[in-house]
Every structure is written in structure tokens, then in C-alpha cells.
């Protein structure tokens, strides 16, 4: 089976499971992104057909929400909080440091495919600012030094 066929099967399975829920589109998009890491552009026709929507409507929803992405992410997605509480505790310097260390800007992925960098507007960890999230893990009171340690730990796991 080709990779493309396998992706389409995954997409179809998510659609079949969730399409009868009221307001099914967001749960379906989450289901696809959970399974594949992103929402491939060629899954849009299948979603549209499954929900009796136009492709434009589905595309419009995907592009509205910051969380949904239509390209594969790196192995680890690093979310850096840009919001006020983190700014009050050196978040801007951390942001700059992260970009320099990873050698990428926001919405980019490192050439080796290891890390993607995304901004986030609050992780609810404001009592432990500045905060970042790497994959499912949240980290508080992150300094440039501890940022490097977190990244190195992820690299070693690879």
C-alpha cells in the first residue's frame, strides 16, 4: 500500500467515526491532526463529501484556526508563549534565544525535521512564567539555559 493510500484510509476512518456528531467538523480535523500530525490538503475533498460541505468551507475552517496545520510538523513542536505574563518574566529574550538556537523563525521547521517552532498565546502557566510546551509537555520558569537542556534532551531521545 502506498503512503498516500494509507493517509487517505486514516482520514476516511476518522470521518466515518465522527461525522454523525453535531458540529462534527472540528472533532474530525482534530482526529486527523492527532493521527497524522497535520491535515493534508488532499484530505479536504473527502471531509467535504463526508459532511456535505463545500471544499471552500472546509478549507476556510482549517485556515481560520491557528492550531490546525496543512504541512507535516517536525518531530517535536516547540510552542513558546508570547503573552504578557511571560513577557513580564523575560519571555521576549527566551523567544529570541529559541529562534537563534534552533535557527528557525516561527511557523518553520529545522532542516533535519527535528523541531518546529510555533508561538502560543498563553499556556495557563502564568504563575510560572516564562512557559513553553514541547510536544505534550509543559515547562515553567524556563531560562535560556534550561531551554537548551530541554532541547538537548529531546535530541538525545531521537
Amino acid at each position, binding site marked *: 500500500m502506498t503512503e498516500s493510500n494509507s493517509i487517505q484510509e486514516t482520514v476516511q476512518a476518522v470521518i466515518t467515526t465522527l461525522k454523525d456528531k*453535531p*458540529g*462534527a*467538523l*472540528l*472533532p474530525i*480535523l*482534530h482526529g486527523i491532526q492527532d493521527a497524522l500530525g497535520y491535515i493534508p490538503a488532499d484530505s479536504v475533498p473527502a471531509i467535504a463529501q463526508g*459532511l456535505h460541505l463545500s471544499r471552500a*468551507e472546509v478549507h*476556510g*475552517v482549517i485556515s*481560520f*484556526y*491557528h*492550531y*490546525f496545520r496543512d504541512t507535516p510538523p517536525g518531530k517535536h513542536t516547540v510552542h513558546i508563549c*508570547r*503573552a*504578557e*505574563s*511571560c*513577557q*513580564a*518574566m523575560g519571555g521576549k529574550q527566551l523567544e529570541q534565544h529559541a529562534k537563534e538556537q534552533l535557527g528557525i523563525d516561527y511557523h518553520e521547521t529545522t532542516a533535519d525535521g527535528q523541531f518546529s517552532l510555533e508561538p*502560543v*498565546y*498563553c*499556556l*495557563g*502557566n*502564568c*504563575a*510560572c*512564567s516564562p*512557559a513553553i*510546551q514541547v510536544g*505534550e509537555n*509543559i*515547562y*515553567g*520558569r524556563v531560562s535560556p539555559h534550561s531551554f537548551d537542556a530541554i532541547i538537548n534532551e529531546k535530541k538525545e531521545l531521537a
Partner: protein
Amino acid sequence: MSITVYVPCDSSAVSLGADRIAAAITQEAQKRNISINLIRNGSRGLYWLEPLVEVVTDAGRIAYGPVQVSDVSALFDADFLHGGAHTLALGAIEEFFYLKKQQRLTFARIGKTDPISLDDYLDNDGYSGLNNALKQTQADIVKAVTDSGLRGRGGAAFPTGIKWNTVLNTASEQKYIICNADEGDSGTFSDRMVMEGDPFVLIEGMTIAGLAVGANQGYIYLRVEYPHAHIALNAAIEKAYAAGYLGDDIQGSGKAFHLEVRLGAGAYICGEETSLMESLEGKRGLVRFKPPLPAISGLFGQPTVVNNVISLASVPIILDKGGDYYRDFGMGRSRGTLPLQLAGNIKHAGLVELAFGLTLRELLYDFGGGSASGRPIKAVQVGGPLGAYLPESQFDTPLDYEAFAANWTVLGHGGVVVFDDTADMAALARYNMEFCAIESCGKCTPCRIGSTRGTEVIDEIINGHEISKNIPLLRDLCNTLLNGSLCALGGMTPYPVLSALNHFPEDFGVTDTTDAA
């Protein structure tokens, strides 16, 4: 007999290493052949002391914190399992100043119990409110909430009882209860603490709301940035179904209430109730025109209660102890308690639940202990990214909806973000405009275009370009946003921007000759 040890599962505690502490304590106990019962509790909200470990002793629960993995062995050596002396010892947690001075109603259980243990919940007054509600008429439940004086804790402070009454009196086959758990404001985490630390109280509050207005379906619209809360809510919902607290026949009453968690996808605007409903319906989160009110035509066009997490989580205690009990806390038209969240550059960051009426200064210094950096506090943003910055001259404002409004500031969801004197208020104002541009849903022109033009104008000012011309332009633009926007995103972004400009003109390069006014 095994000794009970508590290590929080709260995501902020975990972000500081609580999982590793829990593992290290378990391992060390095994190594020393000591039998312990380790429970993952919610957080007490004393975040500067997290990870905070508690041990149950004859003298009550004794706390130690902040604990690092490297401290664990020494804690065992000091016999912390029996409350032994150690440099990290904080004494009996209930007597600790930060907690002892609080009035915890909504947060009564958080930090004490295992969040996803239904038995723990029931042993600590859980479901007493629902049991009372099941014996009352719908109108009586609504009356209790109205009598309590509870106002929407999400930020808008609309009286909850009035909202419920409208839904109750709107005839329909299908009605909905929505919990707005899209807690996107920077500096706020009280919703997250409730969902992670006491999810049953939210489930109970929503069930009571359903009984009160005749809705049999509820949705919790949860932001995707809260994965720990998602897990805790789903675990608690499953247990509530299994024990007959959710489903087609709640506790044999013949009344139904179903509940499901739906995830948002990183759009701040979906915390606006009509945008949230569009999102739940599977659409772009565009703000709707009002009227019609959601209470009359909300989700899928049906009458819908949309309440914030804290509002709904405050309902069980109101139904348990009565509307009067809750109303007796507070001042003026702000009744009950507000869980305040101290964040940013503050020494004792954490959760402080208090009756309305304390001043901001008392909160910042008596609880917060001043800035974390030790430098003077320059400004405090209250109420999230749409809230004004307060300078020192406004620190004596009582924490009360009306007192804040009189100052052209907002209490909002109770988030308090502290900045020391290194903060650049022009850079922050620029950030607030940029944030509005990033998060605007695009439906109305003042917000969609005004926020981008606003960012550009502030850039001109920061670069010192024609300040005397650009300041009036910025004020004029803010006026358009303030009066012409469809919702609070565009309508309130001028609060942080103009308050920064008004109170800290020097940060914008304004001198007497350029005149900010």
C-alpha cells in the same frame, strides 16, 4: 499502616517537575521499605512553592516545598513522612498565611482531594448541591442562583440567574448548556485549576444548570492548550456516567443530562460566546450579531446557557448552602468570591480566592509579596489582554466590578499580571494591537483593519516619527475600535493601549512639547 503523601498533578506543578518528584518519592520509599500511599492532588495554588509535597500526619497535613528531585533523599532522612524538620518544611498547610487569609468557596476542595476520585468528591460535600436541586422546582433553582448575586466570572459579569431565567422561559424541545473553557487571557489559570483539580464540581454545576433550564445536553468548549484538563475532565465524566450522575436518569430522578468535551483550536476569539458557538457548530469562529441573545437563539439556533468555568463551578456551593450564604460575601453589586490569579513578575504567584473588596495593593503586597525581581512594580494589567494597565496611583482600587469600571479599568476574569520598572509600556501597547490583529475574526472592519493600522502607528511612534501627529491618530483609531467594533476584542483592545499611553507617556517618547492629550 501506609503513610499518605500528596504530590500535585496540576500542569503548572508538573511543568516544574512534579511527575519526577512523585516518581522519586515512590522509588525512595521502596528502597527504604516504607509503605506509602502516593496521591496526585490538585494544586493549592501556591505556585512559588511548587512542586509542593504534603504528608498526612497526626498534626494534619504538613507541607514541603519547593521540592526538587535532589531533595527527596534528604527529606526521607529528615523523616518528613512524620512531619520531620527540614529547610523546605512549611508547617501545617491549612495554617499557611497565603491560604489561611483566603475565603475558598469555589476552590474549597482543590489541592485537598484526588481530582478524579468520585469517592473523594462525595466525602467532601460533592454533589450536595445537585441533591438539593433534584428536590426543587426549576424556578427555585434559578431563584437560588439569582439570589446569590453570582455574575459571570468570564469577564462580562452579567448576572447568571437572569441568563438562566431567560433560557428557562424560552420554550423549546432542545436547549443546551455550554461551558466556556476557552481561558485564553494571559495571566489567568483559575479555570484550568478547577478542571484539573476538581473536575466534578464543574460537571455538577453544569448538571444543575441543565436541570434548572430544562437542557439535556452540555458541552465543555475547552482550549486545545490545556491537554491535562482534557484528560481530567474526560476521566471524571466517565466516572459520573458510571455512577448515574450523568446520563438519561440522574440519580433516579428520570431527568437526563449528557456532557461532552469539545476542543478549540488555538483561536482566542472563540472565547467570545457567539464565536464559540459557531466553532462548536463546526464553522469559522466568526462573531455573531446580537440580538438574538444566545439565551433565546444560541447553539444550533436553540436556547443556550453559555457560562464560564468559574461561574458554573460556583453553582454547587450556592445550591448546597443557599443563595444567601454566597451573597453574604463581597461588596456592593459584586457578590460572593472571585478567584484572583497573581502572575507575571510577582514573588508569590498563585491563586487567591477572596470576597470582592480587597484592594489591588493588598493583593500585590500582602499576598504577592511585591515583584519577583525585587524592583519596583511599574504597572499591573488586570483582566487579560483586553484589560487596562494600572499605574501605582490606581493600586488602591478595590477589587469590585463597579470600582474598576469607574477607573476605566476592568476586573474581567481576575487575572493580574505584574510588570516591574524595566517594562516598556509602548512595546506592550504595540503587542496588544498586534495580538488583536492576529486574533481578529475579521468580521467587522474596525477590528480587522484598525488593529493592523494601530500596530503600524505605534511602530511610527516607537521609532520617534512625527510623534505629535501620530499620537492623536492613535487616539482617533482607538476611538473607532472602541465604538465601532462588533465584540470585545476590537472594542477593548484600546483599554491596554490607551491606558499605557495615558499613564506612561514617556515610554512613547511624549514630552511636554508633544503633549499626549
